[in-house]
């Protein structure tokens, strides 16, 4: 079985390639997999049943490649594969030779045939669902075969939406069933039905009914007639729409005697049968007429299998075959008529029967089977159906009414397609290709040829029908059962059908007046309503305003606090609060708080920058007071650098603080609430701790490792991994930022400004600003301090291991030295001060840091393992050499590169753009 499915898949994938080389002849090749499957089916039938195969696939979700063929499955297999082969052959003649969609069509058809084959043989509910949805998708693609037609696109969408909705319900139903049964194996569930929640049964049935176009889901099937006619014959008459019926039949032995199951399936089936038949009487398009006929027949089938007795199941099994044969024939006939006479409208076709007597004969034979005339398969099936329902008067009445309608629309179809109509000119007819006629005639003839096998069929099917627990009314499946009530009912239905046909004009008028619910409109109302709702909701949620999003975040933060207290209980309030430990603390705190409040009212950007800077300096002071000079130093340096950067940026960036849409008090309130939550969180956290923090162990560990400065040990050793990450962050952000500034410019070089101030007077720097912008004292200071400060930075880099300093602080100091030269001397001075590409500096820095980490991995125990050795150097005494220094050097270089890049981008390049008067 798996091999056959793979064969289908391979053929489907190769189809476009085949079609491109062979044209329509490729369909012969594509028919090979279904043909092989057909042969396999016959072999399985001959060899004896049941056949089963099982391969593990995904045991976690209990999805197994479980295949099983019992009589019901074999019948379906034979129909699916046999009609598949015939339809492929028919399609080769039906489609225009040069059609560019040939490959697509052929591929999807074969893929569909494979899925259908899998569907009817799957013995695992989940596997069945897999094939189920695959048929939906392929049907979608085939309905949309003519993608330029709006009608077919809409029809495809409708079919997809309706069948998938049902399918998803069914999936939930399957899972509920499987979980109740403890297995997803269909045969096991049928043999030992679990007690399933009613909702599961309804869900499963919903899927089946949607797939088989049962009321209220019928609307998609007539619309699906937008597909090419062979597709309709195969998917929408013989195979796919039977999937729902098949599922009801398949699960019948398990749930057929559950009242709910019957109460849903039987009435809906009968309503569909009658409504579909009634609707068919009004159609003038032959294909749509057949489509409504199909809806009607599907309702019939669902009612039979849904009734859930041995008798009805047998009748259903017979009807299944009969319907597939006659309905496929009739669709193929429509295709022939359309192809030959160029129309499917009953009002336009006249005298076609005389021009195509053999086609007409095939149609009449199939029609007779559909209407239920002896001695055809359709007759035997209908007799059995009537007999099986003798105990159920309502169902019987429904079926009789439906049969009458069936007879009427059969006549309407035959008359519409073939009769010579008065007042309508006879239609000229093209020759019919044999490839189209032969499959049609074959299917039609089978409707007659198989009839004598009826009782044998009943015997064979007993292996399936016997599994139903409710025997029902005793029923015979024979070509001629003698005179009795069923025959009488049959005859009455036929007579009524003839009358209905004879009175077709008034009937059609009545049909137009009588308000039969049109579910198509309902469907589109739902879809449009959904679209509208989606747009409105999205407009509401997706405001596109960053302030709104941020406000939402703050609200959520407050929510976090509320939720924690609500669910976690009110916090312990005996938190020991120490107002301050050192007198500096309150002073600094007041300073910081004042700065924060000032920031709220800052209107000028530069003022805002300074105020925010004060916050930073205040924090640095707090670090210092708490005995952490390293952190304080770094914070001071970073704050200073930040101020410079701010000042540079603000030249081109007038920040408008903007006004929120909310009133000021609300915003204040929200801010305060967030503040309360965060402060409370901090206090709570501190009071909840009853263990020694790991920081204390770090200090011990660092001392044991010989480091005298715990902060540096943390940065370049214990948590060097974080340092590596964060320095990379700085590099990338800097590059990203400056790349935006250099966007419109291709050169990174600092071009010397035009010699606008060839000053003869001596100056201290390599370059200088024009008179008026220049401050001589600044020049002097910049010149004098530059090398000293650089030296200091190197010092900071190397003393880090024992004293205050480190690569980061050193880097910033060096960067500040360069910044001073730039500020004093302008952009040309910057180029002179550090004639290296910033990207290279940063790249080398990152390579050094990451490389050191890798060295530790290769030669030490783990990444970032710092290899150290003590070397005795003359004069300097013992020097502790560690790869940690290399690592720190990487950071140092990165930071210098970063500062330089910022100065170039936000400083020098912006200078140039301002000088050149380029737009912002």
């Amino acid at each position, binding site marked *: 079985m798996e091999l056959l499915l793979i064969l289908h898949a391979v053929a489907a994938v190769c189809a476009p390639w085949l079609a491109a080389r062979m044209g329509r002849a490729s369909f012969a090749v594509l028919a090979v997999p279904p043909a092989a499957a057909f042969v396999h089916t016959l072999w399985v039938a001959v060899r004896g049943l049941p056949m089963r195969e099982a391969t593990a696939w*995904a045991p976690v*979700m209990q*999805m197994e490649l479980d295949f099983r063929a019992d009589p019901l499955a074999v019948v379906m297999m034979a129909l699916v594969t046999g009609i598949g082969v015939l339809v492929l052959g028919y399609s080769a003649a039906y489609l225009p030779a040069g059609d560019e969609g040939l490959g697509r069509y052929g591929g999807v058809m074969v893929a569909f045939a494979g899925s259908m084959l899998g569907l009817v043989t799957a013995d695992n509910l989940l596997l069945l669902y*897999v094939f189920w*949805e695959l048929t939906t*998708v392929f049907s*979608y693609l085939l309905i949309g075969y003519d*993608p*330029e037609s709006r009608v077919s*696109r809409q029809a495809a*969408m409708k079919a997809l*939406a309706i069948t*998938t909705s049902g399918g*998803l319900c069914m999936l939930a139903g399957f899972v509920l069933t499987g*979980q109740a049964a403890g297995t997803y194996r269909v045969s096991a569930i049928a043999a030992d039905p679990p007690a399933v929640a009613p909702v599961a049964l309804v869900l499963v049935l919903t899927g089946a009914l949607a797939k088989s176009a049962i009321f209220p889901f019928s609307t998609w099937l007539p619309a699906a007639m937008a597909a090419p006619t062979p597709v309709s014959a195969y998917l929408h008459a013989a195979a796919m729409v039977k999937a729902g019926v098949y599922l009801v039949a398949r699960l019948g032995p398990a749930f057929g005697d559950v009242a709910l199951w019957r109460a849903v399936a039987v009435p809906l089936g009968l309503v569909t049968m009658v409504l579909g038949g009634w609707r068919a009487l009004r159609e003038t398009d032959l294909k749509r007429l057949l489509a409504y006929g199909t809806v009607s027949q599907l309702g019939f089938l669902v009612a039979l299998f849904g009734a859930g007795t041995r008798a009805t199941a047998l009748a259903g099994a017979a009807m299944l075959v009969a319907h597939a044969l006659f309905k496929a024939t009739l669709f193929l006939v429509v295709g022939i008529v359309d192809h030959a006479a160029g129309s499917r409208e009953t009002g336009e076709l006249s005298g076609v029967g005389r021009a195509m007597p053999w086609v007409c004969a095939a149609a009449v034979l199939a029609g007779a089977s559909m209407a239920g005339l002896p001695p055809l398969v359709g007759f035997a099936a209908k007799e059995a159906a009537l007999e099986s329902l003798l105990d159920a008067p309502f169902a019987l009445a429904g079926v009789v009414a439906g049969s009458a309608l069936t007879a009427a629309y059969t006549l309407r179809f035959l008359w519409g397609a073939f009769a010579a109509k008065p007042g309508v000119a006879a239609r000229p007819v093209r020759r019919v290709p044999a490839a189209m006629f032969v499959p049609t005639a074959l299917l039609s003839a089978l409707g007659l040829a198989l009839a004598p096998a009826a009782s044998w069929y009943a015997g064979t099917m007993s292996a399936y029908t016997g599994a139903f627990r409710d025997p029902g009314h005793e029923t015979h499946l024979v070509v001629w059962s003698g005179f009795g009530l069923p025959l009488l009912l049959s005859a009455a239905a036929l007579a009524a059908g003839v009358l209905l046909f004879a009175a077709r004009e008034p009937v059609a008028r009545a049909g137009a007046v009588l308000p039969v619910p049109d579910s198509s409109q309902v469907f589109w109302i739902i879809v449009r309503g*959904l679209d509208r709702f*989606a747009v409105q*909701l*999205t407009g509401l949620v*997706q405001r596109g305003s960053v302030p709104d*999003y941020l406000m*939402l*975040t703050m609200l959520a933060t407050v929510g976090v606090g509320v*939720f*924690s207290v609500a669910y976690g209980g009110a*916090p312990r309030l005996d938190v020991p609060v120490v107002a301050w430990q050192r007198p500096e603390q309150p002073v600094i705190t007041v300073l910081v708080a004042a700065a924060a409040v000032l920031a709220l009212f800052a209107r000028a950007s530069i003022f805002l920058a300074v105020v925010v800077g004060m916050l930073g300096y205040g924090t640095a002071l707090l670090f210092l007071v708490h005995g952490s000079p390293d952190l304080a130093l770094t914070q001071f340096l970073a704050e200073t650098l930040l101020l410079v950067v701010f000042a540079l940026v603000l030249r081109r960036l007038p920040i408008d603080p903007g006004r929120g849409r909310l009133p000021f008090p609300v915003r204040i309130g929200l801010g305060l609430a967030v503040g309360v939550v965060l402060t409370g969180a*901090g206090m709570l956290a*501190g009071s*909840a*701790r009853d*263990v020694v923090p*790991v920081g204390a*162990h770090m200090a011990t560990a660092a001392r044991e490792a010989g480091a005298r400065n715990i902060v540096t040990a943390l940065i370049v050793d*214990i*948590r060097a*991994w974080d340092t*590596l*990450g964060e320095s*990379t*962050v700085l*590099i*990338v*952000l800097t*590059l*990203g930022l400056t*790349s935006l500034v250099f*966007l419109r410019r*291709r050169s990174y070089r600092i071009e010397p400004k035009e010699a606008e101030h060839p000053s003869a007077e001596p100056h201290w720097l390599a370059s200088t600003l024009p008179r008026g912008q220049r401050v001589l004292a600044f020049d002097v200071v910049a010149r004098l301090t530059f090398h000293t400060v650089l030296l200091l930075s190197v010092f900071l880099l190397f003393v880090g291991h024992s004293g205050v300093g480190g690569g980061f602080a050193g880097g910033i100091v060096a960067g500040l030295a360069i910044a001073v030269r730039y500020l004093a001397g302008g952009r040309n001075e910057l180029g002179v001060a550090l004639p290296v590409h910033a*990207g*290279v500096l940063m*790249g080398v820095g990152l*390579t050094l*840091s990451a*490389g050191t*980490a890798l060295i530790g*991995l*290769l030669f030490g*125990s*783990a*990444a970032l393992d710092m290899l150290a050795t003590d070397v005795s150097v003359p004069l300097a005494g013992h020097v502790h050499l560690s790869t940690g220094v290399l690592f720190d050097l990487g950071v140092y270089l990165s930071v210098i590169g970063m500062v330089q890049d910022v100065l170039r981008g936000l400083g020098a390049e912006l200078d140039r753009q301002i000088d050149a008067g380029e737009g912002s």
Partner: protein
Amino acid sequence: MEPSLPVESLICVPVLLPLLAAGVKLAIGGRLRRLQSVISLVTLGLSLAVSVVLLVAAESRGPLVTYLGGWPSPIGICLVADRLSTLVLVVSSAVTFCVMAYSVANAYDEQEHDAPMAIFHPAFLVMVAGVADAFLSGDLFNLFVAFELLLSGSYVLLTFGGTEARIRAGATYTLMALASSMLFLVALAVTYGATGTLALAQLAERFPQLPEQVKLLVELTLLLAFAIKAAIFPMSAWLPDSYPTAPTPATAVFAGLLTKVGVYSIIRLEALLFPGGPVSTLLMWLALATMLVGVLGAVAQTDLKRMLSFTLVSHIGYMVFGVGLSTRAGLTGAIFYVVHHITVQTSLFLVTGMVERRFGTTSVTRLGGLMRATPLIAVLFFVPAMNLSGIPPMSGFLGKLLLVQAGLAAGGWPAGTLVAAGLVTSLLTLYAVAKAWSRAFWSAPRVVQAGTVVESEEDTGEDPTVTTTSLPAALTVSVTALVALGLSFTVLAGPLSALAERAAGELMAREPYITAVLGRER
């Protein structure tokens, strides 16, 4: 002396190697363009290989730990490779490799041919390193650093080219990311304040001993921070506002990976640090809202990229649902879905990029007849699109099935409601995708000549796009590889779901992780 390399020491490679490569590339500068591409691809290829090795080792030997710098946990930082982290690492490495191949083929780096510095590749590599670090980190603060790494790379990629639309999108993105980082930082401070440690394994031991409200405070603050990154409703609105404008490979890899890092963090957080508790119920309702609001957003879109961004948000809801169930089956589903979603969402964005390159637009109102014009692109779109919509037997369906099974097995009406919402979401995803397909790929073809200058539809200040018919073969190959990777999850559904289940079991047990990190002799 031959240095011996135990497999644990390889754990840092997926982080370190891209960083090193980024450094080398910066040092090389704009020279040797061919070499640049080779370095990127080799680096990511090696990362992928190492990830696979780690996955195999973690699968057979349980969680592997490396102590960086040789400092034992909780003093130093450790990286932990367990089943979950290595599984997502393998998938993300495979995806980033394909995306890098796509970028090289699409010559994104050549757009900056004359620019002073080639930043696309370094930023990409740094982001990849950040993602790997986030998966592997065994330290909460280092997780923060990992997020900073990947975010910094993503800021650069998002604003790449500096068009007005991208700068505006970048502002939204950056501000929200910063808000999230700030909350994360607060949570770190509170965590350290309350427990005195930041090593995840030790936190797992100490959190249960904390008073309920403190625990909730930390959990929810972290959750809020990650929810912003993962784009969980109501913190999701920033995503569709910012992703669609970025360069295609950036959008693709953001969509595939970055949100999933948030989801991954939530999984790790909930399973390791905060098992049980009222938050799981909260997560379920958030999942519900995320799924439905997201997918309705997708239904309302007429632009492919925006539509995909909304489905991205929506399907994050699936994973959160799995986490919220807080059962082994639920986590299994969530993990499986993460793996699936990384791959499929990336593929879809890349294909959309091909459409944009060929036709100059991704608006379905201005596209048409793509199926006839470019059948290959149509197939490459259709397959992952159906996969995303959960059409069986593709991985989207399998993930959905696992979640449905988990939800129904959990029982109760909240779980039942979520299952129903999940199925509705699946249907609406299919509807949104089919609508886009119907309008862009079906319908009457609109002829777009190669070299047509397509002006931007809205007044975004975007440069006009120039269409081209010459899609490099490597472009198609990389996308096909990704689509095939997505399909391979179907073939490998058995082992993959079993692996996801064992990963979920390992997570729920907690003990393997804690023991592996803190040692046996506790």
